[in-house]
C-alpha cells in the first residue's frame, strides 16, 4: 500500500496530477483537489508521475 499526502497549503488546484493518476486525484465541482490517501502498490508509477508533474511539488509519497 502506498500512502499519499498532499500539502493543501501548497496545492493550487492546477489539476496536473489528475492527468497522471485519474483514479486517485480529481477536481471537484468547485475545482478543488480531492484525492485518495492510499493507493495499491500497482499504482506506484502513476503516483510518482503525479508527484513529478505537480508544479507546486505539493504531493508526497509517505514511505
Amino acid at each position, binding site marked *: 500500500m502506498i500512502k499519499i499526502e498532499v500539502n493543501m497549503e501548497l496545492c*493550487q488546484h*492546477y*489539476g496536473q496530477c489528475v492527468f497522471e493518476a485519474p483514479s486517485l486525484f480529481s477536481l471537484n465541482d468547485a475545482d478543488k483537489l480531492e484525492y485518495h490517501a492510499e493507493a495499491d502498490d500497482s499504482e506506484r508509477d502513476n503516483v510518482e508521475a503525479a508527484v*513529478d508533474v505537480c*508544479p507546486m511539488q505539493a504531493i508526497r*509519497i509517505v514511505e
Partner: protein
Amino acid sequence: MADAGPVIIVGASMGGLRTAEALRRASYAGPVTVIGEEPHAPYNRPPLSKDVLSTGVSHEAVAFPARAATADVEWMLGAPVVSADLGARTVTTNDGREHPWRALVIATGLRSRRLDFPAITGRHCVRTLDDAMALRDELVPGARVVVVGAGFIGCEVAATARKLGCEVAIVAPGAEPLIRSLGAQLGAELRRRHEAHGVTFHLGRTVSAMLGEFEFGGLQLDNGEIVLGDVLVEAIGSECNREWLDATDLDLSDGVLADSALRAVSTDGTAHHDVFVVGDVARFPNLLFDEVPRRVEHWNIPTDTGKRAGAVLGAWLARDGSFGEVVARGFTPMPAFWSNQFEVSVQAYGLPALNDGDIRTLQGDLSGAVAIGYYRADHLVGVVGLGLKAELLPYRQEIAAHAAGGLT
C-alpha cells in the same frame, strides 16, 4: 565494449534525476552515475524567484525527494564535465579524470546570460539556489533594485523584491513585459498590474553603461537616462551549457539536436544510439505540433524528456526486443508553465508563440480573470490564463487533441 562502464548522466538537476528514475522504471539495473557542476542534489527551481527570495528557503525545502529505486545511483556533485569523446565513450571532469560510459545522457541545461560588464559587487542573476540565496541577502526594504529583462524571471523577481519593500525598476528592450511569450495585449495588462504595485518600467530601452567601479551604482540607458540602483538583477535569458560537447560531431546549432526518441543527432543527420539529450538543452521535435525540432524552456520539459530518454535507453540496454515498440510510442509532451506575480497567477499550456496572428479571448476579460487562445491554421496551439486554473484544462485537452491539425 558496449557494456563497459555505467550510464553517465551529465547534469544533476531535474532532467538528470528523472532520467535516472526512468532507467530504473524500465528495469535497467546496471550502474548509473550522475555528474553535475552544482554542489546540490537536484532541486526545484521555480521557487527561486519567489519563495526563496521572500521567505528564505533551504535546499532541503526545494530538493526533490529521493526514491528507493534510485538509491544506488552514484552522484558526483560539484564536478563540472569539460569534454566528451563519443568515439572512445568517455567524459572528462575538470580534475582531468576520464569516466568511461556505456551510454551518455546530456542534461546540462542552461546558465543565465550576463551583461558584458566588469564583475563588481551587486550584480546578480537567478538560475541556481546559490544565486537566489546571494540575491536574497540584498533585498532589504528601501534597496533600489534594477532588473534588466522583462521575461518571467525578471517579472517574478521584480514582484518579489517589491513585496519585500524594495524600490524596483525594470529595464527591457521590448515594448511590453513578457511580449515574446504572451504578446502585447497580456504583456500590457501585466505591466499595469506591476505598475499598480509601484514597479517602474523603462521599456524599449537597452543598457549602454554600468555605473560604479567596485559596487553597482546604476545603469545608463541608450537614451542617456540614468537609473540609479543598489542591486542589479540580470534576467536577460539564458545560454546552453554545451561547450563541453564542442569537440564532438553533434549538431549544436541551438542546444543539442535530438530525434523524437531523444537520441543525439550529428551534423550529418545520423542519430547516436547511445547518446541522449534531455531538458532545456534538448532541441527535439514534438509531434503534438509538427516535426520542427525546438528547445522548450518550460518547467515540465526536463521531466517529460527525462522519462522518455530513460524509457528508450532502458529498452535499448535491455535487448529484450521491446526497443522498437518503446520508440514507436511517440513523444508528444504538453508544454506547461506557471508564474506568480503579485496577486496574478499566470498559467499556460502548449506553445503560444506558434500562433499565426490569430489570438482570441476565450473567456473572461483582461481586467479580471481571462483566458487567451493562440491559433495556428485555425487550431488552438497555446492558451494562457490569468487568474484561471482548472478552467484552462479543457483548452489543454483541445491542444492535446488537435494542435497539429490544419497543417499540410
